[in-house]
């Protein structure tokens, strides 16, 4: 890789790898050294603690979510799935398969296979209230 200009560059999984192959998208961001340093600094901060989404955080930490996901500063330290500490700093979820909006986040947690067939994350079977609470919690992870 020898980038010459900044911006977002799209890519895609080339080697057939199973059901999820078509939606293994890539977004490569090329930043200026200053922007990159700022981004690194941001990513190193601990997760935002927002008392207003306490319910959602409790749902998150008391279900299987934490087996795979990490949020720094909490008891979630799973390593199998993506780190969610700064989830909302990303433009897309599911490696580019959907934009990172409240609606898509909710659908993803409800049933990942609706967005990306072949995803290894299980459908979490949460009640509507819990689902909304967790999504609200996710939205505070900037």
């Amino acid at each position, binding site marked *: 890789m020898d980038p010459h200009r900044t911006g977002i560059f799209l890519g*895609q*999984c*080339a080697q*057939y790898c199973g059901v999820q*192959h*078509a939606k293994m*998208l890539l977004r490569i961001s090329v930043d200026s050294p200053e922007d990159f340093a700022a981004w690194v600094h941001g990513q190193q901060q601990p997760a935002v603690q927002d008392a207003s989404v306490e319910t959602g955080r409790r749902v998150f930490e008391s279900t299987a979510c934490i087996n795979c996901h990490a949020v720094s500063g909490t008891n979630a330290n799973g390593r199998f799935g993506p780190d969610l500490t700064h989830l909302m700093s990303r433009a897309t979820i599911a490696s580019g398969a959907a934009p990172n909006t409240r609606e898509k986040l909710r659908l993803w947690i409800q049933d990942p296979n609706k967005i990306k067939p072949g995803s290894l994350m299980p459908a979490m079977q949460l009640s509507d209230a819990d689902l909304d609470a967790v999504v609200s919690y996710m939205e505070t992870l900037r």
Partner: protein
Amino acid sequence: MRKWKTNMSSNAITIPGVQIDEKPWVDTLHGWLTTVDHKRLGILYIVYALLFLVVAGVEALIIRIQLMYPHNDFVSPQVFNRLFTMHGTTMVFFVGMPILFGFANYLVPLMIGARDMAFPRLNAFSFWLSALGGFLLYFSLVGANGLYGAGNAPDVGWWAYAPLTARAFSPGHSSDYWTLSLLVSGFGSIGTAINIIATILCLRCPGMKLNRMPLLAWLNLVMSGMVLVTITPLSAAQIMLLVDRYLGGHFFDAQAGGSAVLWMHFFWIFGHPEVYVLIIPCFAFMSEIIPVFSRKPIFGYPVMVAATVCIGFVSMSVWAHHMFTVGMNSYANSFFTITTMAVGVPTGIKIFNWLGTMWGGKIQFKTPMIFCIGFLFQFLIAGLTGIMLAAAPFDWQLSLSYFVVAHFHYTLVGGVLFAVFAAIYYWYPKITGRMLNETLGKWHFWLFLIGFHLTFDLMHIPGLLGMPRRIYTYEPGRGWDTLNLLVTIGAFIQAIGTLLFVANMVISYFEGVKAGNDPWDAWTLEWSISSPPPAYNFASIPVVASRRPLWDLKHPEDPDSRYE
């Protein structure tokens, strides 16, 4: 006894149409199932391959419907993965190989003046093994679910790369059916290859020295030699995969010290020469058909033989050009780039020689010939994109993209399928005794040609724009949308052309003009006997004195033998 006598007359017909009147159908069926006659086995191979051509063609159409629009959901991702796996596996192993083996079976003994293949029973055994292989592949639809509900047909792609074939990632039995199907049909292919080699080396009629053999026999000899060398590593790899899946082996399991790249080497040391196993018999059709319709003997016979043997050897050392993106060292990359480009040289010589044959000839644009001309153009373009992909850095960009898909479909459809169509139009009169309809043939050609170019010319472009292969859907707005729609339309035009071809085959079987012994005024021995040929082929074994024995017979005042 009466039947035997009928057969002995020179007009005897051993095709079922005639025998149905005389025998109950169960006897006819029994006759076909137990036959060891090379002509009947040849027909069985060809009919079996044509049935699978229709099946795999329908699979391709479903794939194309799914890719017509971005985010289309005509089939689920799981079904899509099964479709392209079955399409690829079927087309290579149960259409391409059997149809070419069928022609070799039918034509080689007739062309070299023999009464059958060297090992008729092995011949029947090989055919039924291949047939069982195809049956196993499609029986997966019923049998592969197992207790897991794990999906009902192979979905690992036709290369079945590790570790996708490990039991963790391919539960159930779909990959087992795939493996066993290729293993079984592979043994069939090896048997047939041994048979063709033995027949050509041992059963040539008096006077038919190696340098007087029709090129079709020469090229099938080389093809068979390649089958022996290439199918064996594939069979070995299939056995290793079964050991991995069921006996705790770790050949391809990188986590336990095995190597996924090992599978790639095994597969492509088979897979690339396989391309030549498929295309060399098509070169053979070209070398027989083009001279007849140019009214000139083949240009540069010895060079054609030498080029074929050269392709046979060089193509054994090009396989890792399928693996440039694996990350081989630069010595390996350079070696495989050079060998891959080198194999283009003898292939180019062949194209020059066919053009040299046509040059100054009195060309007759009958249906077999126009399919040959289509072949020449398309195979040339397929070769040129092949040379592009042979350059490792270019391949790094375009490997696994639709550019590659377009390239090898140009070879296999624009090359192999056009040649097979040419061969069917050319030899159908010999096999059935009736001509195929020329008007329908021309319609078939033009529809198929237009559909082919619409589909596969345009398919290069989304590849250049980065569209990977084997995706069941794609994001809108990447410049792939319109092109994919046009590609799908082209696929359906090809399908309509193929329907006309099927109709032509069926109608002409009953209504076609009687062919007579030699409808094309040709020069090889199969045209010296009745159409269809009697069970014993030749009432008395012919004696030949030149490469064109029938020319000698028809032109005693100026025989070829005078100049050889």
